[in-house]
Structure formats: structure tokens, C-alpha cells
């Protein structure tokens, strides 16, 4: 990869990270406020408590796993000194 390709790739990865953040915000709303009225309990706690905490956390871990596997790629970080 040359400097330009690395920059493009890094920009793509940063944008994908931002996109994952938006997905997680939507999931967080859905798994918490969205399920708060559902009258289902699991181990004595309302469903929304499980989905919005443990569920959201596991969803985030899965999202990061997908992100680094699909979008992120390995590159050489040593690009030499300043060049004009």
C-alpha cells in the first residue's frame, strides 16, 4: 500500500467505525426504551433490563468483531520520515 491507499483505507475504517456507532445507538434505543413496555420477565427482571445491558454489550462486541474482520485490514505502519 502506498501513502494514498493507506489514507483511503484508514478513512474508510474511521467511517465504518462511525457507522457502527450509529447502529449501536439505534440498537440501544430499541433494546432499552423500545422494550420497556413489554411485559416479559427473565430471571425475575424485566426483559428490557437484560436486552439493554448484557444484550447491548454482546451486540457491541459482535459488531466490533464484524468491523475488524470485514472492514479493517492490516497495513505496514512504518512509512518513513517526512517527505515533500
Amino acid at each position, binding site marked *: 500500500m502506498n*501513502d494514498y491507499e493507506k489514507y483511503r483505507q484508514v478513512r474508510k475504517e474511521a467511517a465504518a467505525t462511525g457507522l457502527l456507532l450509529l447502529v449501536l445507538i439505534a440498537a440501544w434505543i430499541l433494546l432499552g426504551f423500545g422494550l420497556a413496555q413489554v411485559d416479559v420477565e427473565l430471571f425475575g427482571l424485566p426483559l428490557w433490563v437484560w436486552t439493554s445491558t448484557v444484550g447491548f454489550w454482546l451486540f457491541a462486541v459482535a459488531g466490533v468483531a464484524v*468491523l475488524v474482520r470485514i472492514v479493517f485490514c492490516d497495513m505496514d505502519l512504518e512509512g518513513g520520515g517526512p517527505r515533500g
Partner: protein
Amino acid sequence: MGEGRLSALAPLLLFMALMVAIGLFVRRRAAHGSFVAQYFIGGRDLGGFVLAMTTVATYSSVSSFVGGPGMAFSVGFGWVYMAVVQVTAIFLVLGVFGKRVALLARRFDAVTVVDLIRARYGSDTLAALSAFVIVLFFCGTMAAQFVGGANLFATVTGYSYGTGLVLFGLVVVLYTAIGGFRAVAFTDTCCALVMMAGIVLLLSYVLHAGGGFSAILAHIRAAHPAMLTPLADGNMPVGLYFTQWLLVGICTVALPQSVVRGISYKDTHSLHRAMLIGTFVIGFMNIGVNFTGILAHGVLTGTPADYGGVDFVIPQAIVHALPPALVGFAIVGPLAASISTISGLLIVAASALVKDVFLHHAKKSGREVKPRTLRRLSTLVTAGLGTLVFLIALTPPSLIWLINMFAFGGLETAFFWVLLFGLYWRRANRLGALFSMAGGTAVYCAAQYFGLKVAGLHPIVTGITASLFLFLLGTFLGKQEGEQNRFLFFPKKG
């Protein structure tokens, strides 16, 4: 000191001895290569696991382990729902800035975030302002960690506040000054592991002492039904959720103590691993410790006020739920959160003074600094800064926890747009960055001081909005400067 329990002190003494041993070991091993790069960034060779742990441990402060769960005890599961937004903090900073700053730092031989800001905007004024903001706000945050840790120590062990402060406060300053960033990274890793073990230990004993999960929940359902709803009878307004997403979620991407970790790892494979491990660990800690705070209703029957406030809920839960022989082990976890944050901030604050101010001006005026002088100066400045904060904590201001959150928001306001636009927007220029950092921080401080809350939201919303507006204004009014560096930051095709 005589009235305290020695059994509660022994595990902490052992842990602190281990931290100093790591500092000494690292100092001996790091005798090769550039001293500045070794001392302030650990030689850029951290692996994925250590990178994840040091980022999490520096981010997770004593308030995550004491004040947060205390609030969860008071408010209920809505607090856990709010706190869990922090699972985004690690992958966000490493995903957005991790590779970008790693590439640029190698290109410009940068070892600090201020180095990168200076290279990008070509402004000594902006660099000096960045260093000033870092030192100022970091000192506030460190003082809060010292006070929180010493209070916890005094409550649980029976020894005095001063004894706690001397015991863990001076030790953290000592090992950070001796071993630099590398010692911070390795001790942070130990601290993060100890924090996780501490949560498991406390949670299991709280469950046992409270008669089990079902019994504690039945009690909560009968006595505090609002704790099972997200809005908790108005104690958790939607506006609070919104501002917490900004304050401890999205805007943490620009915290200098987190961004600098992007300069410290060895290869991109390590970065990818750290994003995954860090997200897992920070979620485990946040959910585990806040659930523990709520389940403490099984062992504490009063209100937080009965125990001296929300900050004393977890210390009291430790005392009530654990057998005396294990109290000392349970306290090591929260204190590890405190010392790992102090060490992480201390080394960055010292680098701002030594590398960004002293060395830069020495180089500019053509003065050569001998390696031996530099080594001594770095150690002395780190120790001096730590000692200064230690002295502040000896007579703590009464609003120390507010100072902690104030500093968090101040750093985010100062650096969010300067870093984000600086690293990803070609048109961003120095006037915009100066306006944003100086003006945004001033607006944020004024909003805090005058209690200005637009639509009832935390002043971070006002600060970050003003900072954005001022950046855009400065960028459109200012000139495009430093074309050579701009090309290096934003390479063109071909």
C-alpha cells in the same frame, strides 16, 4: 493508624509492591533506543492485550467503581442502561484515531498528541494551549482520583484518609516516575485484571449475603418498583441519557489520554485485537459493577444518605458482605481503578511539559539537551506533578467529584473538533483550531460556572456546540497554511 485492620491492609501493600517492582523492572529493561520515545510512549511496541487493558484502565476511574454503582443503588437499572453506553468508548477511539495517529506519529516522529497537533496546524500557540489544557484538566482529574481512592481506603480499612493517600498516592507517583509509559501500560494491565476479579468477588459475596439473586430482586420489586423502569420515576430523565451519550460515549473519542494510546502499539493486528478485547472488558466492568451496586440492596437496608452519600455505598457493601479476611482483596479492585487512571494521566501531563514545552523550545533555540539531563528531568517533572496533585488532595476541595466531571467535559470540548477535523478534514486550519480550543473551552467553563444548561442539558452540549461553530468560523475566516504538512497529512493519488 493503629485502629485499622492489618488484614485489610496486607493485600493492598502486596499489590502496591508489585506495581513498584514493575516500574523498576521496566526502567532497567528500557535502556535502549530514544529515551523520550521509551519513557513517554513505551517504544511503540505494545501488543493487543496490553493496549486494550491500558486504554480501559486509564478510562475507568475510581468514580466508575464507587460513585457510579452508588448511583445505581439509588436509581436502579436505568443507571446501568445509561452506563452501558461506555462500551463504545474503546472501539471508537481506536477505530477512528488508532491507525491514523500511529501512521502520522511514525512519519513525524511524534510521541504526544500535542506533537501531532503542532505538525498538523503548524502553530506553537495552539500546541502550547493544548499542553496547558491537558495539564490543567488532568490535575483536576488526578486530584479527584486521589481523594476518591483515599476516602474508599479510609472507610473500608479503618485507617485514616491521610494514610491511604500516602500509601497508594505516593506509590503511583513513584512507579510512574520511574518506569514511564511502559510501566503505566503494564501496571494498567494488572490493574484491569484486578478490577475484574474484584467485581466478581464482590458480586458473589453480595449475592450470597443478600440471600441470592431472586430474594434481592423480590425485595427491590416490593420496596423500590421504580428501579425496574428506565426513567426511574423521573430520576433518569431522557436528557440525562442524551448528555451521557456525549460525555462518556461519543466525545470520549478525543480524550488525549486515550488518543495517545494510538501511538503506542506495535502493529495493526494488535490494534484490531485491542478494539475487540477492550469492548468486551469495559462492558464486563460497567455492567458488573453497576449490577453489584443495585444488588447491594440485599445487604444495605438504608438509603445512600444513611451511609454518608452514594460514594459510600460500595465501601459499605464491601464491609457488610465480605468476611474480614477478604475485605483487603475487595478494596484492591477500586483502588486499582484509581491508580491506573492517575498513572495514565500523569505520564501524559508530564510529556506535555517535558516534550511539548521544554524540549520543543530547547530545539527551537538551538540548545542541545543531554540524554542524562533529559532522563532526570522527565523523572523529576513526573514526580513533581504527581506530588503537587498529592498535596492538593491532602486538603481536598469539597466539590472534588464535580471537578472530575468538569475536567472530563473540558478536555472533550477542547480536543474533539481539533482532532477530528484536523485529522480528517483537509480544509481545517489553525485559526479554526485556535478558535475552537480557546473559545469552546472558555464557553464550556462559563456555562459550568454560571450553571447555564440549554434545555436542561449538561454544559458539555453548550461547549461542544460552541467549539464546532467557532472551528467552522475560524476555518472560513482563516488562511490555508502549511501546504507541505497538509500534503503529508492528506496524501494525493499518484
